[in-house]
């Protein structure tokens, strides 16, 4: 097969890339305003026409066709675990890794009030986890009872102690709720096994996507939607970091995607203890994704200002606080707003730099000083201090000016506490062709081509 047609059905754009497989290069990319809320076929055919324009209709028909989707903003999940540091973290990792977004976390003994509050969050799926194998069963079964009796009408994935699995499932079935049993996310101390949970989450996500308007016809023309877009990007990042048998990867690296509503942070590195710190809490995965739903350029720009402080941001952007607040209002009311004056451009850059700075620091682990026998420091979360490559994607990083200075916000700044386990120095690159989703799709079919197209898309900016 000579060409691959790779399509992403997003909530803002439907994107397409055509890859020349034998030569491992991207022939063309294009994007069109999303039509997933009206008829996804419209966007599909626009993509097909763009590819046919480049390689001809016959070549398009004969091409390998793969697709991903982040339509409708990603699967909305809640995680209920036993402890914040263990099962909640593991549950969140599973959720993010599968491309979902986490609207709510609950830890410890759930109460009926928790269930009511959960019902109001508009979640589509609940991940219930907790208890090592041969460990705690009581709390997780109690939580199953609370959720089972609630008014929630969403599927539940049980990923806790397997000894309580069947009983938990009976509780949910008795209450008319669907329950999927998967392997324990934290089977033992220091172990994490999120793969089975991620697979189920992804399948549910795919089912929801295919129920969208026009998607059944899309399936006739392009086959099944392979995976959620964030999952495709994760797979791409993992490939870029690890390489293939014949082509080396970049090693430890991070990716940052600053969007209108969220900032996604990915890291690909083996978690090691910082200096002599003892690692505690849930094991950190090699490939980790976090989504900061309050860190975005438009819909959540007001949250960025609240977190970073209006006075600080206004000073750095060299504007008045009043102008900053008015500008943020503009962004909230019109998410397609384009900065068109020097002041607005500075405000955009300041929002981006704060979103990156805060999101990366939330993603990374940290050192806690303790005073106990034999242990002076404990490490919670992922150690990114040895990561020296960061890749930026998303509008302001790819097409804005001086993206390097924005990405360098991910690095430990002068005067900042060393306890934050973020990188100390970084080589910055941008994904100028928006090709990562396509590489993730292509990975299973031709990993060398997928790796090559990613490397070709990267532009060093530091």
């Amino acid at each position, binding site marked *: 097969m000579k*060409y691959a047609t790779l399509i992403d059905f997003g909530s803002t754009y439907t994107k397409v890339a055509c890859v020349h497989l034998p*030569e491992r290069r991207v*022939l063309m990319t294009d994007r069109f305003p999303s039509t997933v809320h009206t008829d996804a076929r419209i966007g599909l055919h626009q993509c097909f026409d763009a590819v046919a*324009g*480049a*390689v001809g209709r016959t070549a398009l028909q004969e091409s390998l066709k793969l697709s991903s989707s982040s339509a409708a903003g990603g699967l909305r999940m809640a995680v209920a675990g036993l402890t914040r540091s263990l099962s909640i973290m593991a549950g969140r990792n599973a959720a993010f890794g599968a491309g979902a977004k986490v609207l709510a976390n609950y830890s410890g003994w759930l109460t009926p009030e928790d269930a009511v509050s959960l019902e109001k969050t508009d979640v589509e799926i609940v991940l219930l986890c907790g208890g090592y194998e041969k460990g705690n069963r009581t709390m997780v079964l109690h939580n199953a009872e609370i959720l089972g009796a609630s008014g929630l009408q969403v599927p539940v994935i049980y990923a806790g102690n397997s000894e309580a699995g069947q009983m938990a499932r009976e509780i949910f079935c008795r209450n008319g709720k669907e329950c999927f049993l998967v392997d324990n996310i934290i089977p033992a101390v220091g172990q994490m096994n999120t793969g089975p949970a991620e697979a189920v989450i992804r399948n549910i996500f795919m089912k929801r996507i295919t129920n969208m308007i026009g998607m059944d016809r899309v399936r006739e023309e392009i086959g099944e939607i392979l995976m959620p877009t964030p999952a495709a990007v994760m797979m791409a990042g993992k490939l870029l970091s690890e390489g293939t048998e014949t082509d080396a990867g970049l090693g430890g690296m991070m990716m940052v995607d600053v969007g209108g509503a969220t900032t996604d942070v990915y890291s690909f590195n083996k978690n090691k203890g910082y200096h002599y710190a003892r690692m505690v809490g849930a094991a950190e995965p090699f490939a980790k994704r976090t989504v900061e739903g309050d860190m975005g350029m438009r819909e959540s720009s007001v949250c960025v200002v609240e977190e970073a402080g209006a006075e600080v941001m206004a000073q750095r952007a060299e504007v008045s606080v009043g102008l900053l607040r008015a500008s943020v209002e503009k962004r909230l009311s019109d998410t397609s707003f384009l900065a068109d004056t020097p002041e607005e451009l500075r405000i955009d850059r300041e929002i981006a730099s704060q979103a990156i700075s805060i999101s990366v620091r939330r993603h990374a682990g940290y050192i806690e000083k303790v005073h106990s026998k034999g242990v002076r420091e404990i490490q919670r979360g992922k150690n990114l201090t040895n990561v020296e490559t960061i890749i930026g994607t998303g509008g302001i990083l790819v097409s804005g000016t001086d993206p390097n200075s924005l990405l360098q916000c991910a690095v430990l700044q002068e005067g900042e506490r060393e306890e934050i386990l973020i990188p100390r120095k970084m080589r910055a690159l941008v994904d100028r*062709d928006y090709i990562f989703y396509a590489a993730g799709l292509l990975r299973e079919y031709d990993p060398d081509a997928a790796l090559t197209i990613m490397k070709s898309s990267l532009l060093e900016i530091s």
Partner: protein
Amino acid sequence: MDIEKKKILESVTGTDTSFIQQAREEAQAIQIPRSSWCEAEGFVSEKAYKSVMASKGGIMYHTHFCFPDRESMQRDMPALQEQLEKQGLVLDRFGVSLDPSMALPAELRRRSGEKAGLYLETQEDWNELASYSFSQPHLGDNMIGSPASYDSCCKALRAGITTMGNISQFFGWDYPEFQDVEARTRSTVMAIAAMGAHTEDGVLIHSNLDDGYGDKCADMGQLIGMALLEKYIAEDLLGAKVAHSFGDMFHSPYKRLVFLSALKQIHGDEAFGSMVFANKLGREKRNLDLNDAHLCMCMLYDMAGQVRYQTGHAVTVMADRGLDDQVTNEEIVRKLGLAKQLEAYLPEALKTIHFAAIDTEAAYLVMRGRKLRDNILSYLSNYIDIMEPYSVMLAIKKAGVKGLVEELSDKMEESLPTDYDLYSH
């Protein structure tokens, strides 16, 4: 009203133009193969490649060869490919000088004297031009617009050559050996109709505006007017697509960008360039290396223009020999290497250019050009059917572009003058 012109125009009527439809139908039967370059690049057509490159602000390169014969081409092209690959350089397109006799109908051509450029007799000779996988051929002079337009056009299409000119030469050049202007017009219109039959396949009619009108248009608004007139004839009346080229007589970097902006305004999203030239003839004759200064200035601003306007014009790397002296492969490689070095400066150079001001100036050119086009067509409509392309072309040719432009340009408005005087700044 000029009595002579009136007589000329009144003589341009009454011809049976069924040959246009015949040409269209014959051309539709031609299966345009993919050139070796298209196959290698993986694109369905040259235009598809240009479209993709232009949409990402990619820079494409073009040079020109003056091979004295086919043997030179067969020797030099593979060697150039090797040198380019060694240096990691890309030459997207190349033009070749055809022997001037190629402009004449075949029977006259054979009788003409010693050949000074590529002389293509058989279809295989034409096919050879499109057999180089590292670069796409372009045919400019002595093709469309010449007395042999239709025959040459069909042969080129059959070879997989999909951009050919040079429509402005119909109006701007004359062939002393062939005085039958009606026959020449007929052949040219048939060629444009043939190209129009394959617009969906991505074929483009190249027109180097400087060639045809450089000495006839004192200002850039008038030049745009002629571009609009060509567009009317070739696109509106005959269904083809025109790729406008310029540059030889544009020394000012500001004017180069203003003109490109104007072309973008008149073509819109359907702007597909062939190339923008530096002054091919070279200003320095004794020390040719000094022409690098002019070349680099042109290349940097032409690159900036492509990033901004995305018209798909290739940047040319020739500035000192014209189209009569052959350059060496080493010179081509050296100049492509210079161009590659310049690309690194492009992002910072773009910051220094005031595109809003350029676009405003260009809008004035377009206004002036539209007035000129409308005035010419309005004037002609007194004598001919301006919906009939053969009549329109013949009428303009017979009346003369220079006179029409002088008489029918708006006298009240001023416009940026062209830099026709090659040695002034």
